[in-house]
């Protein structure tokens, strides 16, 4: 064939047409009894091992439920990809998920979730933003398709303050609470709630920001020590957490009075030293360890059968269980949706109705009783405080919820602001 202009043009046209084939093929796959869930997450940049463990838990749970015949007759198909916390990649992944008919997206990244929020609302695709995304998405009336399904950071901070109060005999008047946080929007998020509570409870709040990503906090912690805090909260994620713990230990703070948000796990303790951190507290949204029945079932049915999604020793760690928790909530939503409309059609609205009717769900004792309503996407905001004993996190309290009035004031303040901007 000679290389003429006509041939080149024809070739280009054919190539342009052929380029859309892969998507069409993907769309054609699978029967109608499939619920597609997309999980574009950050495996490589910021969240790394957090994502790996969280995602492992999700996949193991979904494998188990699929083996048992799916949810209400529907099989769950998941599509996992890496967005590396990079927004163009995340948007591409989201749009691909949309083209492939996904009805739920779980990006597990605060910046990505915030950027995808207007798209999810417009496209009516449910987006799970567990421990990430906008805290004001708890307000389901403004964010009908965004589901935190977990206590947001304001709730976590409010609950920890309540715990401090209980421990100190019912009053925090005149106490000093230090808040050491990464200097990003995520790290600064709890400040308004903490300030409101400081005014209400009469404690003195001192905030210590450290520069991201937090590899070096040696200048901050001596100042914390000098402030002689009654309680210290450290708020970060990834490497900042282990550095914070190391510095807290080095500066001789009482570990029993140092406390973290949900982002603390056995893996962090291995880095700092399991024995150096005995006594440190954290907020726990679900039971950790292998005792819960659902983890036992995963161990026998999935991991035992050689179908586990990752290393077996990670099963039952904190983030693994968060993954199981969120997968269980998502699939409970699918089950409810299948109950409401057994024949579908499977779309974002179908699953939305299911998620909105989750009532008193405990995932066989893994999580506190969670109820999602069209108004409350946080699910009640229950959690507990756990203490590291050198081997595992042991619960110090029962499931409880606190200071929700202050939290919801903040939620409504920002959600109404969002609603006003005309999205």
């Amino acid at each position, binding site marked *: 064939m000679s290389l003429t202009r006509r041939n080149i043009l024809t070739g*280009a046209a054919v190539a342009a047409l052929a380029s859309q084939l892969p998507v069409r093929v993907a769309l054609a796959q699978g029967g109608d009894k499939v619920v597609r869930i997309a999980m574009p997450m950050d495996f490589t940049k910021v969240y790394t091992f957090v994502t790996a463990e969280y995602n492992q838990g999700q996949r193991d749970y979904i494998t188990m439920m699929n083996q048992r015949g799916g949810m209400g007759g529907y099989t769950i198909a998941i599509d996992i990809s890496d967005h*590396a916390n*990079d927004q*163009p*990649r995340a*948007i591409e992944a989201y749009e691909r998920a949309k083209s492939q008919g996904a009805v739920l997206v779980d990006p597990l990244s605060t910046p990505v979730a*915030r*950027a995808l929020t207007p798209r999810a609302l417009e496209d009516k695709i449910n987006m799970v933003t567990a421990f990430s995304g906008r805290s004001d998405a708890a307000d389901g009336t403004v964010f009908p398709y965004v589901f935190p399904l977990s206590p947001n950071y304001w709730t976590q901070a409010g609950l920890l303050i309540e715990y401090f109060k209980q421990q100190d005999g019912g009053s925090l008047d005149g106490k000093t609470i230090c808040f050491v946080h990464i200097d990003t929007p995520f790290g600064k*998020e709890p400040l308004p709630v903490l300030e409101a509570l400081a005014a209400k409870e009469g404690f003195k709040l001192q905030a210590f920001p450290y520069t991201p990503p937090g590899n070096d906090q040696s200048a901050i912690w001596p100042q914390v020590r000098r402030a002689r805090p009654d309680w210290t909260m450290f708020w970060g994620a990834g490497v900042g957490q282990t550095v914070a713990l190391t510095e807290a230990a080095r500066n001789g703070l009482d570990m029993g009075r140092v406390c973290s948000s949900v982002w603390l796990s056995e893996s962090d303790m291995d880095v700092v030293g399991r024995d150096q951190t005995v006594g440190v507290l954290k907020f726990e949204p679900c039971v950790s360890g292998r005792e819960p029945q659902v983890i036992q079932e995963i161990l026998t049915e999935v991991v035992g059968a050689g179908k586990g999604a990752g290393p077996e020793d990670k099963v039952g760690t904190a983030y693994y269980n968060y993954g199981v928790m969120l997968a269980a909530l998502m699939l409970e939503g699918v089950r409810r949706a299948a109950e409401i409309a057994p024949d579908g059609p499977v779309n974002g609205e179908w699953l939305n109705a299911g998620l909105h009717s989750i009532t008193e769900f405990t995932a066989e004792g893994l999580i506190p009783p969670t109820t999602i309503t069209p108004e409350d996407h946080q699910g009640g905001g229950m959690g507990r405080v756990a203490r590291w004993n050198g081997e595992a996190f042991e619960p110090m309290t029962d499931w409880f919820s606190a200071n929700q009035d202050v939290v919801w004031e903040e939620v409504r303040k920002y959600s109404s602001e969002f609603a006003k901007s005309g999205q």
Partner: protein
Amino acid sequence: MIYRRAGISFTRYQDERQLWKLPTDRWAVIVIFALLLVAPFLVDRLFVVGYLLPLIIWSMAAMGLNLLMGGAGQIHLGYGAVIGIGAYASVHAMRAGLPFELAMIVGGLASAVIGVVFGAAALRVKGLYLAMATLAMQYIVDFVIVQVPAISGGTQAALSVPRTSFLGIAIQGDRAPYYVALALCAVLTLFMLNVRRTSFGRALAAVREKDYAASIIGVDPFRYKLLAFWVSSFIGGMTGAVLAVCYYRTISPDQFHLDLSIQLVAMVIVGGLGSVLGGFLGVGLILFAPIVLNQLIGLAADQFGVAIPTDLRAHLPLMLYGGLIMGFLLLEPLGLAKIYSNIRNYLLVWPFRHARQ
């Protein structure tokens, strides 16, 4: 044979002065532009919103940076911040009720003013020192955006972009944002292609080659360095506005971090300094290689049952991506544009090996 021309020789001045001198090049541009115009009707929407739209917007940013780096020889490691200033300024302007057309210019002006202030460092320092000065700009702007709730939009640090329209077309859905970005990109591309044929472009080139030599021949480096920063930052600010309105729809500080600046510098260098086409090619490689590689690895893992652990599966595309960039730069340090130009030069005289220039 393909270009129907062995070497380039003109008999009329107007032929020599055309933007694309060979009919084949002109046709190629027309065909590509026509394909871009009909793309939303031709290919799946995913390719439009997930690939073409970011390609167009990032190319605008790369062209703006290329004017400064390739045109005037001034390195800028804070171009992400310049784009961020434009995005925030224009979104705040739109939230205050300004139409998009004006808000875009407000964004451009805000970026240009702040960009020139930091660009003034270029009057005293060069090379690596200028890189440090512009890097400082990146961090200062990041810091200011995060620390001032009035700019970032409160604790959620996510500022949603109001619904808006461009010249009467409502920017919503899949197609309208694409066409708006495409139109603006076309205008910018024509500007960039022409700017180096103007006295301004030639003055920048003189400053790029040696600033005191330029001043000896009567080109004022003070003026042209500042002008280069002004124009380039203005383009960056406009791009920021387009990015916010057509693509992100919600802006947050992390979109404009150092990552973006480094990404843009990489695009300009891999694409080819000073080349307009290179900007597009560089953006295509840097923006999409990770995505495409990721999908290929995923496909290989799923279809052919290659059992790779999840973490390796996530990191493998990054390794390949790094190798790809190194490979291209080893193969041709002058960038993708030079590779294209080599191929074109070869085909220009094919089947012969050499021709009279």
